[in-house]
């Protein structure tokens, strides 16, 4: 796909500034109307491109960034696929995904066929439009704090399988000759072979080497990011050299890293830059569409969107229900998934460059993405409300044998931010009182140590909103933070639930006073705490020097014991 000549024209230009400015405004509008940002970016491209104003051209800079966007998108996507997260529902997930792919593709095929599209178009479109949009679903569910609920887990699991299937589709479309099945098959198996080798290599490296590298650089975010980027580009370059689609290389680079416990922080590092490049990518799709491309099939787009949304919902609902989950889980799990994936545009764009479909089909796909994603954003937002109002229609399907198994969620737990000598001693006490305890630290070297102590360890930085959500900051009963960064501490105070006890650490008295003003229960200044304890010992000395010797005896033993460790 990298067939653009970049030797000049990469300066920051007015065109580019206009593009980001409009994308920003559209982003705010989308945010306020609960719409996914993807739609905002697509529409930004439509506004600035030939469809409306025709003021921004596709420049070398935009092309470079949108190529990078696609590569980073795939890398991030791979990075998010943690097989561990769906291990206990893997079997039903695989069954659901398989049948969902078969049934929904068939449904889409029938619909497009009857809408009168040409056969090759029908095939491409049917393959493109059957899957759910990972960024939309994951982001909205995460914001609603439902990503770890059972329907959320089922959706994420199915999306993981779908994403892998989509990557396979990408390889199919990259075959040199698409009219003859033999070269397609040869190409397919070649690519699969390369993927398997890269995959094994990626997994092996991330299992054996990454922990060692991360231990060295882990608390240095800058190094972590550059290492991650180097890894991604290495795979992209190798794919390019081996004639495999670069998206596939990027995806596998991410997939291998995802299985290591250190991927969360890297994900947080890669996300902003991906968001930025992706903005350019989706806007560029909008820029590339002429008005006539959008109008050719708009009626078909409306009809197909409506039919597919209903049809896909029913298929998913049937499939989840068949696995004997409760009615509510089946309903929520399927209604979240009714939109068309952003990948329809990625695969579509590839199909256009291969000459399989025309630009008017790309216009059709864009319309469908905008309509289904736009509508499904509201459906996900109000999914419980919808369920409450229609559940009587489905009550006939309820039966005794159906039910959900428990998914562990963190609630009324204790959180320790920063692992050190001081908090290490607290962990047993907190564990006894609160049961669940999560320790989060920017340094990954404690993973092993903490696993043994029964505490859950998260490697990452609380400055990221997603990180705060994933450790259930808003539901914790007790929070002890050793982060001397007041920015983090302010966040903790802003997010904590009422009645939670919060111990924070401050650098100096000024910071401490500020944290008390913001509502901290107790602010630690290490040297002052230590001095307080020391003063207790001095008190005994002033009373009688022998008492001092007795008072410090216990400490001396601890020092002796610790020194031997």
């Amino acid at each position: 796909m990298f067939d653009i000549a970049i030797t000049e024209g990469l300066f920051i230009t007015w065109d580019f500034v206009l593009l980001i400015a409009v994308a920003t405004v559209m982003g705010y509008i989308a945010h306020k109307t609960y719409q996914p940002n993807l739609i905002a970016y697509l529409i930004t491209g439509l506004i600035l491109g030939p469809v409306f104003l025709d003021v921004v051209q596709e420049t070398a800079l935009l092309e470079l960034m949108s190529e990078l966007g696609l590569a980073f998108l795939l890398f991030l996507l791979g990075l998010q696929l943690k097989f561990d997260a769906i291990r206990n529902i893997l079997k039903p997930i695989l069954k659901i995904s398989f049948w969902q792919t078969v049934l929904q593709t068939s449904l889409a095929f029938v619909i497009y066929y009857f809408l009168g599209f040409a056969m090759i178009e029908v095939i491409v479109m049917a393959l493109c439009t059957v899957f759910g949009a990972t960024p939309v679903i994951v982001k909205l569910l995460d914001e609603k704090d439902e990503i770890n609920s059972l329907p959320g887990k089922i959706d994420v699991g199915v999306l993981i399988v779908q994403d892998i299937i989509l990557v396979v589709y990408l390889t199919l479309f990259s075959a040199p000759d698409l009219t003859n099945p033999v070269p397609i098959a040869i190409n397919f198996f070649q690519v699969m072979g390369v993927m398997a080798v890269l995959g094994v290599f990626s997994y092996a490296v991330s299992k054996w080497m990454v922990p060692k590298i991360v231990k060295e650089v882990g608390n240095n975010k800058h190094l972590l990011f550059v290492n991650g980027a180097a890894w991604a580009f290495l795979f992209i370059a190798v794919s390019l050299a081996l004639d495999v689609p670069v998206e596939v290389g990027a995806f596998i680079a991410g997939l291998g890293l995802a299985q290591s416990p250190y991927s969360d922080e890297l994900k947080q590092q890669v996300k902003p830059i991906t968001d930025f490049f992706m903005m350019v990518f989706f806007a560029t799709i909008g820029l590339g569409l002429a008005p006539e491309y959008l109008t050719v099939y708009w009626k078909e787009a409306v009809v197909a969107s409506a039919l597919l949304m209903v049809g896909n919902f029913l298929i998913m609902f049937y499939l989840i229900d068949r696995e004997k989950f409760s009615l509510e889980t089946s309903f929520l799990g399927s209604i979240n998934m009714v939109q068309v994936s952003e990948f329809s545009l990625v695969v579509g764009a590839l199909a256009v460059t291969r000459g399989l479909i025309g630009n008017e089909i790309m216009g059709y796909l864009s319309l469908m993405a905008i309509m289904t994603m736009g509508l499904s954003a509201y459906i996900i937002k109000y999914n419980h409300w919808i369920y409450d109002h229609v559940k009587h229609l489905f009550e006939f399907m309820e039966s005794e044998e159906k039910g959900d198994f428990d998914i562990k969620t963190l609630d009324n737990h204790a959180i320790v931010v920063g692992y050190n000598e001081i908090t290490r001693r607290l962990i047993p006490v907190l564990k006894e009182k609160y049961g669940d305890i999560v320790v989060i630290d920017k340094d990954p070297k404690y993973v092993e140590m903490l696993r043994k102590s029964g505490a859950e360890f998260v490697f990452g930085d609380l400055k990221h909103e997603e990180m705060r959500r994933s450790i259930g900051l808003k539901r914790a009963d007790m929070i002890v933070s050793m982060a001397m960064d007041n920015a983090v501490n302010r966040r903790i105070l802003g997010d904590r639930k009422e009645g939670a006890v919060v111990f924070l650490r401050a650098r100096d008295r000024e910071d401490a006073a500020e944290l008390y003003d913001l509502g901290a229960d107790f602010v630690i200044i290490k040297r002052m705490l230590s001095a307080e304890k020391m003063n207790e010992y001095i008190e005994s000395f002033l009373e009688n020097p022998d008492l001092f010797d007795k008072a410090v005896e216990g400490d001396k033993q601890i020092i002796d014991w610790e020194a031997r460790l």
Partner: protein
Amino acid sequence: MIGVIYTFATVFVLSAVLLFVFHKIFKLTIPAYIIAGLIGGMFLTEEGLLELMQWGIAFVVFIFSAKLEPGKLKHGIGGSLLSTGAQITGLGLGFFGALYLSGFGTLNSIYISAALVFSSSLVGTELSEKYATVELLYARLAEATDVIHDILAIVLILLLSPVLFNVGIGYALAVGGGMFILSLAFRRFLFPWLFELSDHSEELMLLSGISLLGGMIAISQFTGISIVVGAFFAGLAFSRFPYNIELVESMESLKDFFAAVFFFSLGALVTFPGVATLAIALFIIVVAVFVKPLLTALSLMHYGYSKRTAYRCALTLDQVSEFVLIIAIQAYLVSAIAAPIFQGIILATTVTMITTAITDRYSGRIQNWLSKNLPFDTPEGLRRYNTRITTELNNHIILVGYDVQGEKIGDYLRECDREFVVIDVNPKVFEETEDLKNRVFGSAMDDESWETANFKQADMIISTPPQRHISEKILALETDARKVVRSNSFKEANRMLKQGADYVMVHDLLAAEQLMDYVEEAIHNGEKAVENMRKTLVERLKKEMDSLEE
């Protein structure tokens, strides 16, 4: 095109390897990129990178100014201003004059002088992170000095715009002023509003940040000012809590990405150095590593700081600033400076950043050596802090070090009406604690300090600095006094107990025990107890802060 992907792969893979090595040895990043670029430059000729460098400059400057916190500078601003003033007048103007007279031409002379004067805040923060919590006077001085340098560098860039881009000086200043006002208005009114509007969304703040950055840069280009000025003011508009946190967090990875490209490309621009390049690099290195620090130290001593503080502070400033690279590349791209000078500056910057990592590691020893062997000292009359003993010292307690912990112990001793004397070498301590009855301004390593503190008659010696040589000195003193020293590691603490210490304070242990008491109180005695505890602690903190202000 395919070439770009291979270029990016080369940039990042080479950088990652060198970063890893440099992180392990020096804890530095910038020289790693430049050297990666030097290597990569041998087989890469990617024109596109040069244009992408502009993005690197934009993001590096933007993040720098978005992180600026003027509040941090309040300590040590006087000394820093003085030392900067001395450098600029002494070094900058002096060398500029000399270079100009020896025929280097105005612009070349300005750029070389800038390389001689400015030191790096990025390197400063990378290296001195470990000091951040120790609140040492010299670290604060150095931090403030670096920030002043960076801001002066921006001003210099603004002033150079007329020469580089053919606009009038009044015009340049007017545009700069306009951007400054615009940035303040955004900072004050627009962004607080946007922050609320976005419900603190990271993605929207990121887009807003890039929009403003792009806008300001476009204005700079349109008006013919350096993009550095635009990027600086764009960052300034965000440099306010709380939204700078979200923004810096999310833009950091973009900065990391483009900064890698930028510094790598800089290295790639250096061809095999000729004699002229090497001579210029050598000249800059000698001045930046030896002359500049010495001048800084002398000016600080003249301001009344002790030898020790002055040398330590000076040792953190012995490198060339990355801002000089940004200034130089701009001039180079419009062919305003000669190639050997540009390459000399890059080489010198890289080398001094590496040497600074080494001097930083051994700064304690270097400072000791300098203090002993150089004939300079704070002039007697200017010394603002003196030893004072006002009561007879007998059965007293000697307190070595009077930082937060020492002070807290001192307060307690005063409460108990127990005679004590403080030994400390940090003038700031004496500045803030005029009411100490007995104090010895001197090093705990000096026998003289101990004689003055009458250590033989003391009942107890409590030492709060964790340095081993101080503890060992105390353990070797011949006295019956109980000896309490401090260490940061259990192993060392245990060794000191065996060497005769009566107790060794390990902060982690003491603090953990005390914290445990509080946490258990909070867990077991419920809401009421937490409420009471909080009240007591807030009151105590308030009292302490009030007494400090008096």
